[in-house]
């Protein structure tokens, strides 16, 4: 646990070939009313050029995961346990952490959580770029679009102001904005929502990042504009070979855009897999509930499924499985014991139905559930 980060990466074959490997990420907020476990032991990895989708409903911790990778949270009040900050973590946060291993965010063999703030600044924008949901609020209204893109370029390269502006024009052209020479001189309010999102993407791409994190990039947009932006992101990925981490609540966008999916619920990963496996034959009851509650072409005239209850109170998580109070399949161990995704067989779902009970080799319900999945 105290081994230097590179050694850990080399030991683990998955981690060494991944571009980004997030292990046991925990992000807790210490606020007035207590401690919120916003992200609680999340692990996943993204291979170079790959597209990973992170899905979940509002408040499940998907955006906090992205911000933690980029280290955009203030500490305090936000705490992510690392080897270095063990002493500084407040008592109540440490109690909740228990003996949890320190979080690691390995990017090309380096632990981002161990970098200094200056080193991290070189990673942001240069290696990892982020696209935010709100194209209205993520751009600064008092600077022209050109000024905002050149700022990023000049921070990360030694380009002169003129070269940077040329680069800005090029990147606007690359995202399909007509007449970029004129557009760089405009302010965000002079553009439509779709155009602003294109500017955000141009800004993110201006330094050729290896990983693009897009947090609900199309949620605020109309469906025809969404189609344009998704097409653009795909095309850029083909052209630059950048990996993409797409955070969204829209399962349709996931189905069309990503290869692999991570489903999050209440700060945990509850299921992972390829997009076909997860969306067609989900294992976790939450994934199943989510998929059957969206109105689809086949569901007309029938009642939609409903996931009963609401997301648990972040200050007061249920004992056992976080989803147990809402789960229709709840049985024996669910309400007392927390299923861990790494104990499941195979390790792609955090559910007792797929996890052998202590002293038993067979997950209790795996054989039962499989039968209903064959119908595909």
């Amino acid at each position, binding site marked *: 646990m105290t081994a230097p980060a590179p050694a850990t990466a080399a030991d683990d074959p998955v981690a060494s070939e991944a571009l980004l490997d997030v292990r046991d990420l925990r992000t807790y907020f210490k606020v007035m009313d207590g401690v919120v476990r916003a992200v609680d032991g999340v692990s996943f990895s993204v291979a170079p050029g790959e597209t990973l989708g992170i899905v979940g409903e509002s408040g499940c911790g998907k955006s906090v995961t992205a911000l933690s990778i980029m280290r955009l949270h203030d500490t305090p009040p936000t705490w992510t346990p690392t080897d270095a900050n063990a002493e500084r973590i407040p008592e109540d946060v440490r109690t909740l952490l228990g003996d949890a291993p320190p979080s690691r965010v390995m990017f090309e063999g380096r632990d981002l959580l161990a970098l200094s703030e200056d080193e991290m600044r070189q990673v942001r924008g240069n290696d990892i770029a982020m696209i935010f949901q709100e194209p209205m609020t993520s751009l600064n209204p008092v600077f022209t679009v050109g000024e905002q893109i050149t700022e990023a370029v000049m921070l990360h390269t030694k380009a002169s102001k003129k070269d940077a502006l040329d680069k800005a024009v090029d990147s606007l052209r690359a995202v399909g904005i007509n007449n970029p020479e004129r557009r760089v001189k405009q302010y965000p309010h002079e553009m439509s929502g779709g155009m602003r999102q294109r500017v955000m993407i141009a800004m993110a791409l201006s330094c050729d990042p290896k990983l693009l994190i897009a947090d609900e990039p199309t949620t605020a947009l109309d469906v025809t504009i969404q189609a344009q932006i998704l097409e653009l992101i795909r095309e850029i990925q083909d052209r630059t070979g950048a990996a993409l981490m797409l955070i969204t609540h829209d399962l*349709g966008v996931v*189905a069309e855009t990503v290869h692999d999916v991570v489903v999050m619920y209440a700060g945990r990963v509850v299921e992972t897999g390829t997009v076909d496996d997860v969306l067609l034959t989900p294992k976790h009851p939450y994934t199943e509930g989510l998929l059957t509650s*969206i109105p689809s072409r086949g569901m007309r005239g029938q009642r939609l499924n*409903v996931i009963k209850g*609401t997301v648990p*109170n972040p200050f007061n998580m249920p004992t056992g499985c976080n989803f147990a109070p809402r789960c229709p399949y*709840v049985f024996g161990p669910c309400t007392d014991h927390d299923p861990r995704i790494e104990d499941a067989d195979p390790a792609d779902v955090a559910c007792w139905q797929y996890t052998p009970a202590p002293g038993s080799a067979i997950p209790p319900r795996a054989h039962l559930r499989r039968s209903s999945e064959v*119908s595909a």
Partner: protein
Amino acid sequence: MTAEPMEPSAPATSAGRDGAEVLLSVSNLKTYYPIFGGMLRRKLGDVKAVDDVSFEVYRGEVFGLVGESGCGKSTLGKTLIRLQPETAGSAALAGEDIFSKRGADLKRFRRRMQIIFQDPVGSLNPRMPISDIIGEGLVAQASKDNGWGDRKVRDKRVADYLEAVGLRRDYTRRYPHEFSGGQRQRIGIARALALDPEFIVCDEPVSALDVSIQSQILNLLLDLRREFNLTYLFIAHNLSVVQYIADRVGVMYLGSLVELADVDELYSRPRHPYTIALLSAVPDADPRVRKKRIVLQGDVPSPAAPPSGCRFHTRCWLRERLDADSAERCTTEIPVFRDTGAGHRVACHWVEEVPEDIVAQAVARDAEDLLRPVEKALHDREAAASGAAPPAARPAMDIGAVPASPLAPTPPEHPQDVGQVGGDPLVPPTRTGLEHMETPGETADMPTVEQPAPERPPF
């Protein structure tokens, strides 16, 4: 401007299909917002939010109205229930002219048309208890006959309708902040229902909600329609939601209806190039469904200066396939909103030129009625359970309960008690999945809330 763009309103009454009664008929409706500017604040022009729209809604149906933001669908809804003054045109509810009503007559009339708003937070006054929020309309509509002026009568009615939307009767003294988003939307629905309307405009009622809550509200709206004989004008930008809930659908673009048809017809055989592109752009959650997407270029033009002729011609993909002379017609002549058969109306000069293979790929017609395996599995279990499990074994549902106080010393008790459902711990309870909680009148217990609790973590 060479042709009268819209058909006269005649078919509305004469063509009542299958003998269905026309509840609402709208003809040549226009709603313009004036633009003032310059030194003298003179009128410079109009934003033509709704421009020459005609359609009819049959009693008991859900009429879906779709379109992108700014296309005028909300303005249309608000104009119809007199929340926004019309510029020209006429509309009638059950034969009574809506726009000519004045004074006390109008006030009485308002009871018959209600609205459910999109934003469940912004549409409830935070300083009013639920009894006043729902009761306000009752006070306004109080008369000798209904006795709503009497507090006791009113409070009972408020409680009745809270129950009808799946909330507890004793919530009347609570304030909006004590409820979750889904519950607040239920309150908005109860407020509309309490006045006994015939016609309800649902203005994006589920777009602010998470998918699992969205499905609760959609189920509820369909239940209430049956129970109270309601007719909905269901405005939404989410095409999947409209496909699920609507009987007939109208598609708006830049203030005008471009297509109107039965829901199945519209989603499988769209005729207008805009509708085809719109449907092709909707991502499908089934990864097996592969649509051939038609990506429209550019943005929607400004409704203050709409393009000449057909308003869609600046972005039309079909027009690019036409020869120059034909394409010219799109820019000069406003297409007539005409019936192409079986009540399927389209505003396009070149409906006959639409290539069938492109349409089939755009809507993935071969994947129609495709149930995802996960849905199929649920159906199978539902079928298996309906024979075996007695209704009492159904888990009681907890309707979007507000989490208990963050500082509560004990973990919140979750109302559906898992233990009572399945006896054998290794045999999970039968899940029926498709029938649910929201049977009006069947209210679930909820944890008592002493103080406001955030519905999301406070960050």
